[in-house]
């Protein structure tokens, strides 16, 4: 059951607007890669739209985000303008990072996106540093740190959560638990019954929530944000979700039992959230207008990415250090 009572109408519309942009962007990326218009490694996010959208709806634009290579949903939900994001995915000079980061290293400080890492679990210690800076500055900001269930098996998770807890850092550790680390099911890699238990073992306030339920996810996110802003410290949110297109594009998900995938698709958070809006008397026309606006943003952004230039080769000598490296 979806808990619509936990978030008001405007919030749900906001979450839907972000989530639909993510869903449509993911579809378009897969389409363009399939058609050979983009040659990139892509980590699909279809199925995880609501987790990020509800989380980011609960924070401000100047709050910090640290995310991972499967990060398109987090980055869009946090508000990175689509044009720059698409151009960076395509490696173009007009991208957020001048084409020097690519899909796995999206950075956009203007919307608080400070790090996207391609190393599983490594964002966690860095998120602590952002939180430490906020604690010292007393700027009231929180840091959201996204990672998957697989990251909880690497040392950085345990070191990082422990440090955040002893220092009461304003960090929200958002574990998007899609049940698979690359091709292996969580039950074969994880000694504890849940990720929440691991947080509890480290002394941290920890909650498990159906991340695909916009109202419940938003309520959990909001509570964690308020807890952190009040100076009480970090929260681990284990948001249960699923990914519909495997670890990376081209992965056939052969390791996922057919019934499990079918059930997950039946529980697709996107039509459920759309229906929730209709149930709240938001008209089909209003919803269609949101979708059309998102489609237009994506059409413009993807074309911008295709039309933009690649950076000049000499660009590799810039930004290595604070001075240009000699040719």
């Amino acid at each position, binding site marked *: 059951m979806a808990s619509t009572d936990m978030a008001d109408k405007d919030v749900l519309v906001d979450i839907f607007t972000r989530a639909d942009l993510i869903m449509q962007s993911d579809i378009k990326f897969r389409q363009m890669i399939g058609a050979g218009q983009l040659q990139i490694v892509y980590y699909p996010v279809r199925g995880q739209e609501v987790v990020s959208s509800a989380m980011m709806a609960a924070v401000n634009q100047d709050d*910090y985000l*640290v995310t991972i290579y499967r990060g398109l949903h987090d980055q869009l939900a946090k508000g990175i303008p689509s044009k720059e994001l698409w151009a960076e995915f395509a490696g173009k000079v007009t*991208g*957020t*990072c*001048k*084409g*020097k*980061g690519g899909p796995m*290293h999206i*950075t*956009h*400080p203007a919307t608080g996106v*400070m*790090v996207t*890492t*391609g*190393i599983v679990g*490594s964002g*966690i*210690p*860095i*998120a*602590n*540093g*952002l*939180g*430490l*800076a906020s604690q*010292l500055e007393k700027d009231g900001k929180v*840091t959201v740190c996204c990672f998957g269930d697989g990251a909880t098996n690497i*040392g*950085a998770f345990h*070191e*990082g959560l*422990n*440090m955040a807890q*002893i*220092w009461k850092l304003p960090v929200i550790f958002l574990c998007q638990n899609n049940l698979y680390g690359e091709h292996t099911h969580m039950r074969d890699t994880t000694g504890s019954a849940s990720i929440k238990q691991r947080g509890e073992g480290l002394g941290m306030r920890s909650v498990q929530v159906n991340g695909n339920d916009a109202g419940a996810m938003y309520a959990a996110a909001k509570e964690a944000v308020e807890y952190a802003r009040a100076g009480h410290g970090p929260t681990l949110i284990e948001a249960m979700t699923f990914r519909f297109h495997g670890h990376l594009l081209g992965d056939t998900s052969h390791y996922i039992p057919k019934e499990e995938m079918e059930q997950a698709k039946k529980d697709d958070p996107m039509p459920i959230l759309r229906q929730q809006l209709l149930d709240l008397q938001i008209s089909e026309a209003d919803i269609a207008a949101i979708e059309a606006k998102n489609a237009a943003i994506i059409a413009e952004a993807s074309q911008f990415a295709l039309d933009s230039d690649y950076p000049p080769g000499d660009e590799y000598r*810039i*930004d*290595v*250090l*604070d001075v240009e*490296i000699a040719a």
Partner: protein
Amino acid sequence: MSETAEKPKDIMFAQALNMAMNKAMADDPKVILLGEDIADKEGGGVFKVTAGLSGTYGTDRVRSTPISEQAIVGAAVGAALVGYKPVAEIMLMNFITVAMDQIVNHAAKLRFMSGGQTSVPLTIRTTTGAGTGLGGQHSDMLEAWLAHVPGLKVVAASNPQDAYGLLYSSIMDDNPVIFIENTPGYFVKGPAPAADHTVPLGKASIPREGTDITLIGYGSSISRCHAAADKLAEDGISCEIVDLRTIAPFDEETVLKSVAKTKAAVVVHEAVRSFGAGAEISSRIHEELFSDLRAPVGRVGSGYAPVPFSPTIEKAWMFSQDDIEREVHKILG
């Protein structure tokens, strides 16, 4: 012999480092220190290098941490991204191995991968060095690993004055800097720096001028270069010494200028000779000055083995003053 009023007081290396951090923290409220046992309650650092700083600046800015090197460096990286100038102490250089992901994949690359939108003005202080029986996991010199990573600066001082100036410059630098200290050297004394003494990064010094051969070193190798040069002078050989001070990126101009003059060179470091920093420096000299050299550039380093424990094997393994003298004689024939 009486002391004159002008003669600077001698201080230990460790004190010079403490003074540099003290000045940096006084000058800039964004300077913070993180590391195991670094606050006074825990002893002010295992070698007392941070002693007193938590008392002056508080434990918000001078934080003792759990034994979690990834978390220490990661926290320093994150704080650096938003304007702090963290100094992370990784107690011993071998412990850097468990934080290499944060150093190599993140500290070194975030400026580049973000297209210059962010930077990581972080300093990692770490100590190491053989000769006192610390064995295989507490005394490795791993500077070549770090020097090979674009985006990192690697620094090692050879005397208290330089240590003071170089550490201050490292903290204020807008790039990630690995600052390598020498454990046996902490208690070596040298002239105290003036409070405003500075040493720029990337600039070598020439502490001894000579005409026959250039000895190039850094950190713990410099005192042995001086001792060898004194001995060689008795045989009528005049050595010039280049103290790199910054290992990466190294001051090619000073090195090449000196070798162009002497037409012979030996690179000297404590690190294992094979694939060491000396190979790169030697190679650059050959590339630029091959036809001017009287003989191929020599290299002195320690043996191809982990640092041994027993004093007899450790001594045999470790580079020495004798090795330098032998190499110089070989080159000059």
